[in-house]
């Protein structure tokens, strides 16, 4: 299992579109992937789950992956956060 802390830097936070991109990406990996925010832990492969975090800009999220491709998964998803979900120039 590996973990990585990730800050949300896109202005709208994990809104529907960003959440859809995130869950879509997570589903491409076989590892179990979770997002942990405060007390809440949700499956990163679930769009609805991500939405329930209501994580806005500035929040710190922990990515957690367990499985064969955990390293690649964390890298790819971390990258999506860093690229602000490709929604800002």
């Amino acid at each position, binding site marked *: 299992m590996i973990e990585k802390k990730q800050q949300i830097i896109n202005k*709208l936070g994990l*809104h*529907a579109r960003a959440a859809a991109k995130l*869950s879509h990406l997570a*589903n491409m990996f076989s590892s179990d992937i979770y997002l942990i925010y405060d007390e809440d832990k949700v499956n990163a492969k*679930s*769009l*609805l789950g991500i*939405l329930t975090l209501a994580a806005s800009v*500035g929040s710190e999220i922990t990515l957690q992956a367990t499985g064969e491709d955990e390293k690649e998964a964390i890298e790819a998803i971390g990258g999506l956060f860093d690229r602000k979900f490709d929604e800002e120039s």
Partner: protein
Amino acid sequence: MLRIKGKAVSPGIAMGRAQLHDVIREVVLAESIGERAVEREIWRLENAVKKSRAQLKKIHLGLQKIMGKDAAFIIETQVMLLGDSHLLGEIKETIKGKLVKAEWAIHSVEKKYLEIFRAIPDLSFKAKSNDVSDVLNRLISNLKRSAPVRAAATAPPGPVILVADDITPSEAATLMSHKRLLGLVLNKGGETSHTAILARTLGIPAILDTGNATELIASDDTVALDSVRGEVIVQPTPEVAAEIGGKIDKFTLYKERLKELSQLPELTRDGHQFHLLANIELPFESEIVQSYGAKGIGLYRTEYLYLDSKAGISEDEQYLVYKKIAQNIFPHPLVVRTYDLGRDKSESARSPREENPSLGLMAVRRFLRDREPFKTQIKAVMRANASGNIRILFPMVTEVEEVRAIRAIMAEAKKELQRAGAYPKRDVQVGIMLEIPAAVRLIRHLGNDVDFFSVGTNDLIQYLLAVDRNNADVAHLFSPFHPAIVHILKEIRREADRAGKEVAVCGEMAGRRLPALMLLGLGFANFSMNALAIAEIKGVFTRIHYSRLRRIVSRLEFFATRGEIEGFLRTELEKAYPGLLQESQGSA
């Protein structure tokens, strides 16, 4: 007879039979199944997903026909949820694990998520729970073999006025694109604007936020809907019904005259020029405002762009939106007002809770602290100005320092764009809103740093009179005819002239007959309003003589009370132009 007040979100008058729409939620029972039935339940679920997907697609196409590409945002989240394999997986797991029918599995998953969403303080996320319910209920109703979509989502039998507690985004879309609705009355409706936008676009009179209309109206009651007054009249007396009938005729006439009016020059009878522009909130509105007679967009409120998760807020996305609107309205001007965030309750929980938001960290104040989104917006506006008709407007300015800080950010933005080779030849003109009395007092100084002013009358009245018009206990004190308002408007006109700067009026006053006439008489010539008010105001303005109006208005400053001011104005204008102020729109 009974009158119910509400928020008129789409103009028009209608009368007809009420049809109460109870939210027909499928009654879902916890039916257990044997292990061997699991496969079958999952198959039913998958079928329902397919059906639902097809239905949403159809709704989307229907919307696209009437709204253009922007239609997507109304059901986009639902389409995404339906495509969420994890959500479906969760439902399937529930079927398997608890051995229940698909209906119950969906129901319990919905319940779980609604509870989670309920606890979220951030409204922009909360709105999503509507979407979750909407799409999951669609699934449930599609589980039935013959799958009649929920009663509400089918066309009502014959022309009726639909009365409901609230309707979901997809219901609103389906119901309204069937053109069989005479009108719409909802208990709720404040939370999402989808219904309002649709009603307006399609010309269906709608009164929302009535609180308890469904308790006061029964199916088959005769109901009249007067969205000029924001009123629903239940079982009108014959006299009132006749009056409403007259209004409907006049409104029809008015709509016919719209076209005619929009061709008229913007001149009073004695040749004094005025300009009428539209306020818009959504990009697609820019495609229709000219047909209402608008000669430009005097106020584009960009908050929606910011709050609506669909539009995102990247510079590129904003740039495209502004450019498109500017092109739609070209050669007329487009005034883009930067985000006025911070006071609205729809605002995200990002801002720490403030005791007194309307005196707090809002609009320009907020952005001078958190500059990046502000600069992004400014850059997008600058880049979009290739056609040269864009102006930028900053709200809630109270001091010269703010304007200088804004100017400094604009200079940076310009430099950055120039370096990237993305700066068009022309600078955008810069204006500020006059809505806090302090800014009015500083016009002569502010005038050195800006190109134009725009008066936001609603806030100006609120801040000058210390009245929140949404507070029922004091709303009656909110009046454009308060002597202090008349004085401050005079001051604005005088000081702006002295500073040699243009000044427009973009609050609600500009779109109502008597206040608009007062403004014209005070010397204001640029008005921006709800597009639907333009024809009416134009009809009134083209009927009067500016010189005469000016004489009447010049006497207002001698009165000490709002009663006298309003009374005098009304009497004198009625005397000079009989019928000018009659509320019925046809008389324009």
